[in-house]
């Protein structure tokens, strides 16, 4: 955490934001565009207030899908990385295939996911998992391979067995890498869930997520509400990232360099 917040931390973004909003209004006034082509920030806020029950319910639905996929990615990513980080031959045999999975655009896999996992929440969680899994694996594997050689030598001098080395040294030392992976995954998970709802959602149980609202507002030409949906999605993304940032702080601030040094 930064030691102090200067005025500019708040003032500069506020000023640039105000300028942007001012420009937005003037474009609308000068161009004479209607609200369903370019709604003003005011109209968007009004739509957000008017639609708030629907937006909140949808955000809750999306958050569930995002959380499910994120946790699945966090758990499976953890164990995959353990396998990859600890055995050279496993790494050599599996990594190319993982790369293949990562390189395949999820949109191509959507119909297959739909068929195998099923529509609605199972499909949405699978898509979210697929999108957020790889950054976690890549980061944590790198972390497990980057343990300080001096520490490893110390463990070996003390006759630590392989498991002790992994659980007491390599995994804790790789924690910052894991958290970095989780942070990337946290930005991707809400996007994955919304994309999932847009591709395989079925709005079952009376509530669709934000991806469903995109359909609903778009077909009804409720463009300000569509912008409000974008805003809600963005806020949801911040909540996810903030949660991981907090986890990062909680797990690392007592011992890790990144929280103690003053040179950055």
């Amino acid at each position, binding site marked *: 955490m930064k030691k102090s917040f200067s005025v500019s931390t708040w003032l500069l973004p506020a000023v640039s934001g105000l300028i942007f909003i001012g420009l937005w209004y003037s474009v609308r006034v000068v161009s004479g565009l209607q609200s*369903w*082509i370019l709604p003003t920030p005011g109209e968007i806020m009004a739509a957000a207030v008017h639609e708030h*029950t*629907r937006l909140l319910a949808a955000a809750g639905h999306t958050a*569930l899908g995002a*959380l*499910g996929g994120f*946790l*699945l990615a*966090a*758990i499976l990513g*953890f164990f995959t990385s353990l396998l990859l980080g600890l055995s050279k031959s496993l790494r050599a045999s599996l990594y190319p295939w993982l790369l293949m999975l990562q390189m395949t655009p999820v949109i191509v896999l*959507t*119909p297959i996911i*739909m*068929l195998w996992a*099923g*529509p*609605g*929440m*199972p499909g949405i*969680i699978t898509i979210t998992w697929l999108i957020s899994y790889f950054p976690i694996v890549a980061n944590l594997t790198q972390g497990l391979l980057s343990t300080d050689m001096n520490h490893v030598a110390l463990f070996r001098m003390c006759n630590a067995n392989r498991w002790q080395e992994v659980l007491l040294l390599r995994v804790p030392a790789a924690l910052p890498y894991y958290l970095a992976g989780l942070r990337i995954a946290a930005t991707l998970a809400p996007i994955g869930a919304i994309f999932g709802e*847009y*591709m*395989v*959602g*079925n*709005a*079952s*149980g*009376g509530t*669709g997520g934000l991806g*469903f609202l995109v*359909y*609903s*507002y*778009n*077909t*009804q*030409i409720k*463009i300000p509400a569509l912008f409000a949906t974008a805003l809600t999605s963005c806020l949801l993304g911040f909540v996810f990232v903030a949660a991981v940032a907090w986890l990062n702080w909680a*797990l690392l601030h007592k011992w890790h360099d990144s929280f103690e040094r003053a040179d950055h």
Partner: protein
Amino acid sequence: MSAYLLRLFFAGLALIATSGCGQKTPAAAASGAALVKVRFQTDWFPQPEHGGYYQALAKGYYAAEGLDVAILPGGPNAQVMSSVAVGRADLGMTNGDDVIVAVARGVPIKMVAAEMQRDAQGILFHAEHPIRSLQDLQGKTIMAGAGSTWIEVVRQKLGVKFNLIPLVGDLARFVNNPEFVQQCFVTNEPYFVGQRGVSVGALLIANETYEPYRVMFAGQTFLTQHPDVVAKFVRASLRGWVDYLTGDPAPANKLLAAKRSDLTPEFMAYSIKAMNDYQLVLGNAAKGERVGLLTAARLTKQIALLQEIGVLDKPVAVNEVATFEFIPAQP
């Protein structure tokens, strides 16, 4: 920490499991007799175009037949036919052409009744630049679903040439450009564009040459094992449709609105009126059509057409794509 994450993981799994089976089962009949469970897969989010089924559910027509029907909502990429084929649902509804093509590719499903005598797809146009027949599309640019069968029919059979731009679910361009023409559902888009103060018209694509049904179909295994259940389902569904379109649609609309808060009463009323105006479900009695009717003659013609325009790569027999035993006799 991993123990903590592990707990979260299982919580997540439980979540997946419960949400997957989150379908509420309809209220059981008061009699307490064991109802036969039937899962019916629809092709889109709940909407008035599914109204007949919801009416049958709301008014207890299914329960009266001894069925406990769960209407499964669809959505984008709903894959209705695959879902039924792999047994995730027992019956489903979709475009009749699609069933013909799927059966020809070996998907184990079969049509059991018509839902709509003709598909609701249409051409949406501004009233000041009317499209009175498909011939009027000559030389125009149309936003339409690439690969739609009707496009090939109009091009190859009617010899009408036009340009295509991909269909995205977005009406803003249409509203903005008076000469714009796009594919629509006559039961849907005209209402929302009309709400924006644009005077529009819609031409039903279905015509003498090309007139696809919308159908109810069953999985082959389910059909073989439970023909009695299929018969009951078809009977109750058609009863629901007649009641929804000619009686008071409020019971179904109430269910629909509970499932989708964005469906307004005005829109649902519009959709019902369009289904009646275009005689989509109840059919044109003058042409011998009636609710639920599928005819071998029309299906044969459709199969031949699909083959001629190259949508169907090998022939398929009428009795492979449909069975006619469940269609109610002349009223």
